[in-house]
């Protein structure tokens, strides 16, 4: 029941928030913080729980089956912590609506990561699009972005829906996530895997299905994009691990070439594109494309070490990309621009802001001692061990490039001469500092003692 509460609490609190007057900014934040804190506590308390109620018995068996273990636990923890940070950091003008949408997003994504049933997984997969879609729709200037986000992802969602139905009919049950020994074989199996894979590739995203991503990341309010980039983008990779690898191992191996090539293109293309951007959020968006391409390669190398590295790097990427987007959001709110050509020299007056951006950027470029390093190292070792020499060599290039674009980002915003045309604003406030604190602590913790996570994330 604790798991059910975990999914329902954010959804119910989010709905109730709409009953408040729109002007109740502080009250809605307090409620949001309490609710998201409660979810963090629930995730920690409910670790290892399992809850199931029968849903359908025909045409295939399905259940409301929630479970919290392994990768699910870590992603749920990541999600709840990032949501908490996002709600604390949230500065938007329509704050009540944004906090409510953040809670909806948290609830639907908790449902997705906790789902032990494919049908439930598909339900939350579609449902988690709605909060972001409506948030973007509510801003008149971002309607195109909203549609692009929604259509790409909903097309993927429909493929997933069809694949789920076919899976259910073929296998007789969708209550299978996390169970060993479920192998789908037959003439239809590659098509079903194809349906799942399409949804996952769009969501991750992977070249050439990524074109919704830079726009969405740039236009979504900072608090929400932190959650989307940190956690929602992991849904696809999570799907590859718990659905693809678990149920279709043979077909995953047979078609691995396609995914490896797509991953490699994303890896290089994302890094090069990040170098060429002048919009701060877009730099991080393309760096995500690059980093997630690396994880995709790790998954399709079918090597235990690489897979463990992928699990670790999933969490690490979630933390540092959330931190990056939040800090860049603070910068944008202060200076009213995201363009590197207008920004510059903020570091001298805003040392705390500069420090936060520095730690996040260093983690992103894989500095030893911070979260990104251990994952990257394991992934490349694993890929090398699996015999994909070309992939391992390719993976080294973006690591070098990551240093270049992350330092370029940091320098462009914080260093250099002070710009006279930028408004001078106060440094990081206490509230903003508290929002970033758990993320920075997690970056340090994962960088120094990754073992605690590594042993449980993927078995």
């Amino acid at each position, binding site marked *: 029941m604790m798991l059910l509460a975990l999914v329902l609490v954010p959804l119910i609190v989010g709905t109730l928030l709409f009953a408040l007057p729109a002007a109740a900014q502080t009250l809605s934040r307090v409620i949001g913080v309490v609710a998201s804190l409660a979810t963090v506590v629930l995730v920690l308390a409910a670790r290892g729980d399992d809850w199931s109620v029968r849903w359908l018995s025909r045409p295939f068996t399905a259940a409301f089956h929630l479970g919290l273990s392994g990768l699910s636990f870590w992603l749920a923890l990541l999600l709840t912590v990032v949501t908490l940070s996002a709600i604390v950091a949230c500065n938007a003008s329509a704050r009540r609506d944004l906090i409510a949408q953040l809670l909806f997003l948290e609830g639907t994504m908790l449902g997705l990561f906790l789902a032990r049933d494919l049908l439930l997984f598909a339900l939350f997969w579609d449902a988690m699009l709605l909060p972001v879609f409506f948030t973007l729709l509510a801003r008149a200037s971002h309607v195109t972005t909203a549609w692009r986000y929604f259509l790409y992802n909903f097309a993927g969602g*429909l493929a997933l829906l069809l694949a789920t139905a076919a899976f259910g009919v073929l296998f007789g049950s969708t209550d299978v996530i996390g169970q060993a020994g479920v192998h789908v074989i037959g003439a239809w199996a590659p098509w079903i895997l194809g349906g799942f894979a399409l949804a996952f590739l769009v969501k991750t995203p992977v070249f050439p299905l990524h074109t919704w991503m830079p726009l969405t990341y740039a236009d979504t309010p900072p608090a929400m994009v932190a959650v989307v980039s940190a956690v929602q983008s992991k849904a696809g990779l999570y799907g590859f691990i718990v659905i693809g690898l678990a149920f279709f191992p043979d077909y995953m191996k047979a078609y691995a070439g396609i995914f490896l090539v797509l991953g490699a293109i994303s890896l290089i293309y994302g890094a090069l594109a990040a170098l060429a951007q002048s919009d701060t959020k877009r730099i991080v968006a393309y760096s995500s494309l690059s980093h997630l391409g690396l994880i995709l390669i790790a998954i399709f190398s079918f090597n235990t070490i690489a897979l463990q590295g992928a699990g670790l790097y999933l969490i690490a990427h979630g933390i540092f990309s959330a931190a990056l987007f939040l800090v860049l959001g603070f910068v944008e709110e202060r200076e009213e621009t995201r363009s590197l050509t207008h920004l510059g020299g903020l570091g001298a007056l805003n040392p705390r802001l500069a420090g936060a951006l520095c730690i996040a950027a260093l983690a992103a470029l894989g500095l030893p001692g911070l979260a990104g390093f251990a994952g990257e190292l394991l992934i490349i070792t694993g890929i090398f061990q699996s015999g994909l020499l070309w992939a391992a060599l390719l993976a080294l290039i973006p690591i070098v490039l990551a240093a270049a674009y992350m330092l370029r980002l940091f320098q462009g915003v914080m260093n250099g001469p002070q710009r006279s045309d930028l408004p001078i604003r106060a440094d990081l406030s206490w509230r903003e500092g508290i929002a970033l604190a758990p993320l920075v602590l997690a970056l340090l913790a994962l960088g120094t003692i990754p073992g605690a996570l590594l042993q449980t994330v993927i078995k």
Partner: protein
Amino acid sequence: MIANPTTQVDWNGIAPIITIAVTALVVPFADLFARTHAKRWVAILIGGLGTLLAAGLCAQQYGSTGTVFGGAFALGGFTVVFEEIVLLALFGSLLLFATTMQERRVGGSVALMLWSACGALLMAGASNLMTVFLGIELLSLALYCLCGMNDRPASRESALKYLVLSSTASGFMLLGMALLFGASGSVALSSLTLGGLATSSFLWSGSALFFVGLAFKMSLAPFHAWSPDVYEGAPMPVTAFMSVATKAATLAVLARFLYAALPTGMSSAFLLPIWILAGLSMLVGNLGMLAQTDLKRLLAYSGVAQAGYLLVALAGTTALGLRYAIYYLVAYAIMNLGAFSVAAALSDEKEAGSALSAYHALASRRPYLAAMMSLFLLALAGLPPTAGFLGKILLLSTGVATGYWWLAVLLILGTAISLFAYAKIIRAMYARPDGKAQPELPVAPWPAMISIALYGIALVVMTFYPLTPSNIVPFVR
């Protein structure tokens, strides 16, 4: 000499129909003597009570079997389920009279709608061709009049168009029935299964004409062209009733025909044209929605597509498929009634809630109605957490399981297209007010608001507690 007819009469079997018919007589009579400003609510109240009574009587027959009136009307779960859906549509549509239509016309309209429902109830239980035709004509005749009940010219146009086109379709259907009768020598749907008929050209041509008639009533593409015009012109409660009850009743006839009347073993090739119509409807209906500026027209095209979805469940004519068709039909009834209820809550006699422009920035003025409308539209699009989502999963799995994978793919394609149209309305509702003066919105009475909430709750509950009737053998042999 004729046999003593009293031996074949079973009043109990058609008690719901009798109840509705008697209510239909009481309503205009009460309307005559009600005070001027009570006419609206008197008619709705009497009509609603009669409907509830009929629903109660109907539910009692769930377990019964056999036929009454010499095989003209079948009893049993199948009939009961479809009758209840018709009664649900009737009750929901009656509530819409609370805000729309001029007070002096409400009494007559309610009475006509009750008669129309009688026809639909007959169709739900019709087990021979004559009852089918009687039901269809009773349903349609009352609807022709109802369509013209508004003062707008479009309403007259709608009535005339419906009359002319629908009569033509009835003519086709009647010729088809005659040919079927010629082929089998019997009007009973069950005797069409007699062996040796598979090669009869009369059976083929008769069935084809019969299907054309049914496809018209169900507004399947390419026989759908009448529905946007008629839906747009007809008064809102009538449109709501037509969109649900006609589809439900026609589906009952079609399902009975498909499941019970056809020779086994010949079904796949024989029925292929129907599945092609279904596929075509999904595309045409969803594409047609994109350019609409009127909610009723949009829902007309949506209805074309949804009729196509419904048929996917019947492809392969499995018992399970029929259950899912019923599940989806109930879901469709609720979401459609919900959408129309919101439109009616924003309307007065002039039906301002029918134009899509009325929904601009609705969220800032009527947040509750905007939220519920979004839910209904999401349900129509098949998104969670609504019964539309689970319904689509069930339809898809039936399509895949019976080998009609191409219908499943078309369903997915159609859904993708439809999303543009539904989300366009949602987007308009959540747009910022553009500063232009908006017409004053009427305040809907509380029964309307409560019914909207109930529709919403039902849609969500149905997702997580899917209940499909098991006692639905379509035909009692």
